[in-house]
């Protein structure tokens, strides 16, 4: 998650990324019997949050490369951060790892050479993520399904807005 300023992740990206790692990545190593002690729904939510955070990272990479797109894209990016936090729940807002950058986080996603191509990559990623959230909603408990359906709907709205302004 370390990219050069001003292209690098915001403090919020680091917070979100740290929270995802804490729940999705670090739990099994930190606890002797994680699968027995972590409720299944928490694991499901953490796994989906990790998937959503990859979308956040793609936006961060695009904004790092094309800062002129910030007025249009920053709001959409922030909404994915909000999705990650909602999936992780209120307890994840101040993760223990927040003050230190994640050591071996996923590498920054590749960004195309032009803003037009980058926007197309965002549309593709948004559409795939929206469909995936809808499929996950089908199998989820009712309350999580409602949240996932809303996140899916938000992604579909992003696609529509990005395509309209293209």
């Amino acid at each position: 998650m370390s990219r050069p300023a001003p292209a690098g992740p915001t403090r919020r990206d680091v917070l979100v990324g740290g929270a995802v790692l804490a729940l999705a990545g670090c739990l099994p190593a930190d606890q002797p019997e994680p699968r027995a002690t972590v409720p299944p729904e928490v694991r499901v939510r953490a796994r989906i949050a990790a998937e959503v955070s990859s979308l956040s990272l793609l936006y961060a990479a695009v904004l790092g490369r094309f800062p002129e797109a910030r007025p249009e894209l920053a709001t959409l990016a922030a909404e994915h951060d909000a999705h990650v936090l909602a999936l992780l729940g209120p307890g994840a807002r101040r993760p223990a790892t927040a003050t230190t950058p994640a050591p071996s986080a996923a590498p920054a996603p590749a960004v195309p050479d032009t803003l037009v191509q980058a926007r197309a990559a965002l549309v593709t990623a948004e559409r795939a993520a929206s469909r995936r959230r809808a499929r996950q909603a089908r199998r989820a408990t009712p309350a999580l399904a409602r949240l996932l359906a809303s996140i899916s709907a938000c992604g579909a709205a992003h696609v529509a807005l990005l395509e309209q302004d293209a």
Partner: protein
Amino acid sequence: MNRRREVQALQEVLAAEHAVVYGYGVAGASLRGADRRRAQRRWNEHRGRRDELAGLVSDRGATPEPSAASYALPSPVESAADAVVLTTLLEERLAAVWADAVLSLDGDLRDLAADGLRDAAVAAALWRRGSVPFPGLAERSG
């Protein structure tokens, strides 16, 4: 899935779609050009959903919620700008009803509710020219 709860959830979105169809009829009259065409397209989509929902309720042996003769609109329409405010509001409120239906429905009907939520969220975003993070979830708005 409790059949009565399922029918009740379908009736609630059906009632909401009736109101939205009425609202689009009012809003469309004040719109011109691309906005009017979008309103007409969306009006047709809402009528399709309404008929689909009425069919699903009938299939379950219940009487579909009828449309009211008229509805109190949430905002007055005296201009094209008013009409866009109204269509945005109608889609936002509808998104919340579809989102609650997700809670009560399973399987294909849950997919239907998620689709309804998605379509309302997309339409609301295009009308207001902006996004919200959690369409349909009143407790997470603002």
